[in-house]
């Protein structure tokens, strides 16, 4: 089936490497995700202190989105009509565990508000929306595996029904030091057709 939409850019973060449109833009050897993502963030020169307060899933999603949207000349200065459709397998489990640890012991019961507010996966969508002034549709789906067909159908529906001009979508999976982010921007103009084959091809880049 032919699609009238296009993938205008994509970003992958995995195996200690950040790639933009298939080209490596950052890499280091740090095995600790929290250190890797912090060093990567600093290397791009973004001045957004709230980044350091985010949980690890939000940092992963935020940085992938930031690298991608900057490359497409978006900024947070004005409102952008971009919907967000994200997915992953582990939801917010990594942060849920940290919260659980803080409430396990009745004798030492001090849950952290700063951790608790991230015990939902779609909070990362909010972080990106705040930075880029996105007031459009957003969804976060949980799947056992990367589900290209669902992302394709859902984003095409948003575009064809006039809900949005563009869709930022993909997979942001994080569990401990295991992470895999793949975000791509679907637009009405471009050269790479938005179809299942291309979505999967770029995911495996």
């Amino acid at each position, binding site marked *: 089936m032919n699609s009238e939409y296009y993938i205008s850019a994509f970003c992958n973060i995995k195996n200690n490497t950040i790639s933009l449109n298939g080209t490596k833009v950052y890499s280091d050897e740090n095995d600790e995700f929290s250190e890797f993502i*912090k060093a990567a963030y600093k290397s791009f020169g973004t001045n957004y*202190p709230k980044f*350091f*307060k985010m949980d690890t899933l939000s940092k992963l999603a935020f940085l992938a989105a930031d690298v991608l949207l900057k490359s497409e000349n978006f900024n947070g200065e004005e409102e952008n009509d971009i919907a967000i459709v994200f997915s992953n397998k582990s939801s917010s489990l990594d942060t849920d565990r940290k919260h659980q640890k803080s409430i396990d012991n009745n004798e030492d019961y*001090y849950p*952290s*508000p*700063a951790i608790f*507010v991230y015990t939902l996966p779609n909070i990362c969508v909010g972080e990106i929306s705040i930075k880029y002034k996105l007031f459009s549709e957003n969804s976060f789906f949980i799947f056992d595996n990367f589900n290209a067909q669902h992302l394709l159908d859902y984003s095409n529906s948003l575009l064809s029904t006039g809900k949005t001009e563009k869709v930022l979508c993909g997979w942001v999976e994080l569990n401990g030091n295991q992470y895999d982010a793949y975000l791509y921007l679907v637009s009405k103009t471009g050269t790479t057709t938005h179809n299942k084959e291309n979505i999967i091809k770029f995911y495996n880049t």
Partner: protein
Amino acid sequence: METLKQELKENIVEQLNLEDIAVEDINDNDILFGDGLGLDSIDALELIVMLDKNYGIKLSDPKEGRAIFESIEVLAKYISEHRTK
């Protein structure tokens, strides 16, 4: 009191993840919220937990924090007068 102030500055930088702010950059009378250190509402809740956990002070009304968290100077004075541990 000076030891307590230093301890508070270190805890605030570490627990509130103020990555871009060094302990020595915080003056005793700097405003902590708004245009000062730029702390937000979640930071305020985190400070309330810190008061309870570290000093045994329970704030029943979060609005109390507005005055108590004005600066390191004010916070240290409040803690020294109300701490139970």
